[in-house]
């Protein structure tokens, strides 16, 4: 078992398993079939759903089940150094892993030949953007009345030196001392307890992984409660 670090406090004073303050709201895009805003600390994501609708061209349709199409992107002024508007390789990758995260949850067999478009935009970034995006998208899908087996929540787990932390912010993500910076985004399904998103940026000792996943699971459960509360405000 690896030695636990001497770290006891995070730069913003949070405990190791403490999440940043969260604000969740549905219905922020009136034109969309479903929409939500999810803010985790200073990271703000907005998601909008259009669908289910017939997927064209016809040859792209799957006669057995529907498809989820995700487009994730960051607004040019959401970060310190401006991002040129348009698709980047990073946003393409995140779009795809988000699609793989959300698809298991949506009951696509109920919607053959259709597509559900999921648009995620980041208004303000302070690490954990893809996770905030997934959290917003999950709420937006529910808001849109898309049939789902269960809800999904996501969190970025990090490590400062030897301490494993939940919900890393940019300062912690950029921390480069000891073993170096680590960012492990994960998404957890509330009922089945399965993981549908898992990535690692940085390094982690293999025997710490379980601890990280458990911490992530607990964090996701807390997030699921917040998503639930916001959805129950539906008017």
């Amino acid at each position: 078992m690896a030695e636990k670090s001497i770290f006891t406090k995070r730069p913003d004073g949070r405990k190791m398993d403490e999440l940043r303050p969260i604000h969740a709201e549905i219905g922020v895009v009136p034109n969309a079939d479903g929409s939500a805003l999810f803010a985790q600390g200073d990271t703000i994501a907005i998601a909008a759903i259009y669908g289910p609708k017939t997927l064209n061209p016809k040859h792209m349709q799957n006669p057995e089940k529907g498809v989820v199409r995700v487009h994730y992107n960051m607004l040019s002024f959401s970060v310190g150094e401006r991002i040129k508007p348009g698709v980047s390789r990073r946003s393409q990758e995140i779009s795809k892993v988000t699609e793989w995260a959300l698809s298991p949850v949506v009951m696509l067999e109920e919607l053959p030949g259709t597509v559900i478009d999921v648009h995620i935009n980041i208004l303000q970034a302070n690490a954990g953007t893809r996770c905030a995006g997934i959290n917003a998208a999950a709420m937006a899908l529910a808001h849109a009345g898309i049939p789902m087996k269960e809800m999904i929540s996501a969190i970025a787990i990090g490590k400062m030196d030897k301490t494993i932390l939940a919900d890393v912010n940019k300062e912690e993500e950029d921390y480069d001392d000891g073993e170096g910076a680590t960012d492990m985004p994960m998404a957890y399904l509330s009922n089945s307890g399965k993981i549908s998103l898992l990535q690692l940026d940085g390094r982690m000792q293999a025997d710490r992984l379980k601890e990280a996943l458990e911490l992530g699971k607990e964090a996701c459960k807390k997030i699921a409660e917040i998503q639930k509360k916001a959805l129950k405000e539906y008017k």
Partner: protein
Amino acid sequence: MTSEKTRKEIVIPGETIAEGDDFLPGDWTIKTGKDIIATRIGIVEKQDRLIKIIPLSGVYIPRRGNTVIGEVKDMNHSGWTIDVGGPYGAFLTLKETPGYVEESDMETVYGIGDLVVAKILNVKRTGIDLTMKQRESGLGKIKDGIIVRVNPHRVPRIIGKEGSMIRLIKEASGCYVTVGQNGLIWIRGDSVEGKIFAKQAIEFIVENTTTDGLTDKVEQWLKENRPKNLVKNNPIKAETSEMNGGMN
């Protein structure tokens, strides 16, 4: 003292709504292990041993006998493809129009972009069959009047118990109103003010569907907001729907 009509609790996807074998899983629920789980955001309804979800949002769920309003998207030699919302197409065959239509006349009778009122004859897994054959007022092409779009799940509230709510609006505005179960509502009448008034009344209902005592609130709203120059109970001569499928 709790009011008799308390707001029912909303359940979300993945939420357990029943445990054990007391109930059978109905619409928008699944059984996993011992639990029955909701798969859509909505209100729980129990019917004898069946437990189901009444959805609050999402695409229109077509049912046989529903009156729907849709836009003509395409046509071929056998009929017209009509968009009534949702991912699946609705089709009106030549056979289901009230009178006889020549293939060459199809475009004139219902052209692309026209709105029509029809009834659902049949719901299949991949599409809806429409008909205009039922001799009812209001089926056919829409030539005049305002269209309002609402979440289809609000339609029952707009119609009200035995049509009570929609009747209030018709009387106050002097307009004739056809409510499509798919969320499109057709308002027609002589005066522009009347039509706009009816539209705003419907929007008021939509914004307040979860409120208790909605009927009273609507009555009050109608009284307070009625345009002054609107003559009450205007004889409705502007029956602008086309009977006989638009072939007059």
